[in-house]
């Protein structure tokens, strides 16, 4: 008979975002049922009920850019930072981005459905949009809300389509600027034309136009079939040609609403394409959609992503049987992510009692808040620490997203910094008994060594710090 106490601790910590006061009591009657009940067709929870859309954010950004330009030309004297409209707008954009991140962390710290949120974070990271530019920073929150969260328990093809065509992804991976070299738009832009009297453009200012293959490459390499998924440089270029025309509105003084995904037939590279041996007839936006559909259905995609899921949830070196089981479910259900999630929590291999995964800084901080039954209330409680720990909010270093293996995060420097933060955090939550918090957050996972260290600590702050820094709390 399964040990329900232990399974409850595994369900909350490995599949969820950590246990807080009262959670174990609630889950222990049926840990697997508790997890399964979190899978639902309507997708993930939304961190903000009345969030701004990507289009609204993009419009704000466009206004900011215009203000910035006019401020540059009008400037006749120095304006102090707190009165400069450009600086004010820039600060507002940053604050909005910080608000998005804070809302997500607060949801993680307080949600009763921790598995649903962790599953969502996996997909948000799989389809990384990084805040490497101010414009993408403001769009990461809306991207997760609009493209990821509604689709995390639907078909993978739907999630893929939503993620790759979202304005944030199109901007992040440079698709908005990709133009078919033989398209009407390219012909028009390349055509030399007479400049009117008083034109401010110099005679030499011809625009270079053409293909940008960044999105095509990352879809193949990172989002679908994976680097070993059987494709060549020619496939990347062909796919990039198929994707031309896909862009967002509002870049070149268009009168339509800004920041919405559009397909411009005039920028689409004419002709049929061959990607991974399959021929796609000419056909505007249907062409790229057909390639995406085939990539979503490819067995290489199932293998690549199921391996990633098992690594994320269970172990840096997951049992092969677990991965094979996930792949079978994926292929049998045409990539039904709700079914794949159910298969994951139903696999005995996923319930090994030894916590094998080292928490990322974000996971560890969120689980610390859960352990004390609190939530972060300002972005200042999160951003400097996460940046110092190497996980700057919304800003993974590359489209590959954050790593989740122990070798990447269990560094000497990282541990010292976690220790420093844990001590500060513990001192502001020192009204609670660390022994009770340890029992409530780790349950059967609490080792005698850690229990003894906490029991013999000199202060509540020290005891809580030891809990947060214990080997079993640092892992899941």
């Amino acid at each position, binding site marked *: 008979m399964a040990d329900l106490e232990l399974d409850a601790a595994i369900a909350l910590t490995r599949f969820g975002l950590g246990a807080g006061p009262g959670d174990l009591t609630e889950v222990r009657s049926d840990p697997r049922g508790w997890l399964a009940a979190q899978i639902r067709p309507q997708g993930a929870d939304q961190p903000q009920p009345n969030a701004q859309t990507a289009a609204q954010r993009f419009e704000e950004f466009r206004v900011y850019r215009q203000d910035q330009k006019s401020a540059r030309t009008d400037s006749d004297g120095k304006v102090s930072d707190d009165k400069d409209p450009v600086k004010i707008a820039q600060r507002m954009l940053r604050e909005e981005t910080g608000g998005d991140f804070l809302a997500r962390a607060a949801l993680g710290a307080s949600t009763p459905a921790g598995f649903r949120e962790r599953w969502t974070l996996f997909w948000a990271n799989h389809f990384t949009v990084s805040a490497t530019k101010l414009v993408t920073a403001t769009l990461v929150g809306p991207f997760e809300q609009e493209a990821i969260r509604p689709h995390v328990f639907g078909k993978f093809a739907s999630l893929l389509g939503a993620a790759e065509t979202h304005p944030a992804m199109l901007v992040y991976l440079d698709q908005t600027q990709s133009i078919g070299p033989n398209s009407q738009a390219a012909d028009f832009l390349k055509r030399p034309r007479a400049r009117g009297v008083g034109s401010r453009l110099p005679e030499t200012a011809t625009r270079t136009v053409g293909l940008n293959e960044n999105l095509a490459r990352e879809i193949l390499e990172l989002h679908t079939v994976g680097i070993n998924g059987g494709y060549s440089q020619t496939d990347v270029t062909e796919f990039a040609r198929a994707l031309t025309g896909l862009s967002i509105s509002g870049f070149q003084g268009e009168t339509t609403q800004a920041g919405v995904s559009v397909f411009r037939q005039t920028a689409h590279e004419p002709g049929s394409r061959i990607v991974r041996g399959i021929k796609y007839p000419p056909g505007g936006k249907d062409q790229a959609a057909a390639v995406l559909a085939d990539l979503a259905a490819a067995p290489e995609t199932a293998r690549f992503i199921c391996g990633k899921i098992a690594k994320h949830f269970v172990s840096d070196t997951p049992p092969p049987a677990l991965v094979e089981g996930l792949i079978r479910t994926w292929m049998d259900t045409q990539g039904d992510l709700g079914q794949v999630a159910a298969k994951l929590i139903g696999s005995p291999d996923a319930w090994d009692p030894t916590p094998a995964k080292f928490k990322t800084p974000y996971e560890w901080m969120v689980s610390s808040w859960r352990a004390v039954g609190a939530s972060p209330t300002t972005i200042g409680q999160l951003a400097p620490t996460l940046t110092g720990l190497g996980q700057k909010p919304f800003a993974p270093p*590359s489209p590959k997203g954050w790593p989740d293996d122990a070798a990447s995060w269990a560094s000497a420097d990282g541990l010292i910094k976690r220790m420093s933060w844990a001590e500060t955090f513990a001192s502001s939550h020192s009204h609670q008994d660390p022994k009770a918090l340890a029992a409530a957050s780790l349950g059967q996972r609490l080792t005698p060594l850690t229990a003894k260290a906490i029991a013999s*600590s000199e202060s509540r702050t020290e005891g809580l710090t030891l809990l947060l820094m214990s080997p079993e709390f640092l892992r899941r």
Partner: protein
Amino acid sequence: MTQSQPTRRKLLLQAAGMGLTVDLLARQAFADTEHSMASRKFVFINCRGGMDGMTISPPVGDPDYVGLRGKIALGDEALNLDSTFSLHPAMTASHGLARAGQLRIAPAIATPDRARSHFEAQDVLESGAPTQYGATSGWLNRALVALKSQRKIEAISIGTTAPLILKGTYEVASWSPGRGMGSETRLPGLLQDLYRNDPLLGPALARGLSTEDMATAAMSAMSAPSAPQASGTGTQAYARQGAAVAERLGRSVAAILTEPGGPQIAAMSLDAFDTHANQGAAEGQLANRLASLDALIGGLQSGLGASWASTVVVVATEFGRTARVNGTGGTDHGTASTALVLGGSLKPGGIIGDWPGLKPAALYENRDLAPTLDMRSLFKSVLGDHMGLDLLALSTRVFPDSAAIKPVSGLV
């Protein structure tokens, strides 16, 4: 003047004395070598994202350069190196070093990987294996394993997360700016006790604590650096701030390297060289990154002081970018790029490796700058000539299956 004829007995004694002297001298010389080897330092800087070699060291004298690069081509503003090459105008500190014979470029260098994938190419660059997944540890870590039989050797990775190049069985410290904790706390001791049976956390904490002590000592002599802060002050100010932070980082790393008992080897990364769109020329996003790289180099060089003479710095990237500018004012993933080699004791010489030229037929797959030099040739030369590793270890353990890849000669 009278000099007594040496008796046979005297000769024997003298011979014996000579023998003794020779032995002593040899020992002394050996100790000197040991001492100077022990003081040698190596810093590896990885420019992640695929740094555009034709921008950091533009081949302005190549007749095909301007045609390929169009509006992102550099001209007279670039800092002259020779009749073909210049350095990007942002690389002022590096250019000063080049004029002193302390910087050389390898303008068409690549790893053996040709997939144009960041992650695969970085894996090959850092693992030192001929193919992806060829090794799960990094070549610099395996070099440490090979060096430890010769002398005490320590390395440090700069940054919170450990890069593949230093992953492996040899324990390596890590450090990044901006941490600190109360010194009166009992916590480190309690945690060491709690981690005593944990093979991952126990050693990591011990390394962290000893680096912390060392860094504290090193930093007390200079103002503590702070992590980059994104403040709302516009792109140019941000770039200047980025360069200032990089300069301080270079000085901090230099301080750790020169601390008594400090590490001899450091590895660090700069991100955001993946310039698919609007990469700019003399100014722009890539120029800003190069300014940071240059400031980092400048900080290292000035911070190392006299130790610069026994230091070699290598700057490399996972791949170069397309020879032609793309449709969006940027460049896409390519093949060969530039590596920089810097140090106080470089031998004079021109470019490292050959320049394949930019004629259409010379381009790799009619698209990229063609590689003429394997990255491992450069690394082998530095690890061999500068750090004292033998060729056998280099061609088997450090860079597996690489006997055919000869070290560059005449570098250090």
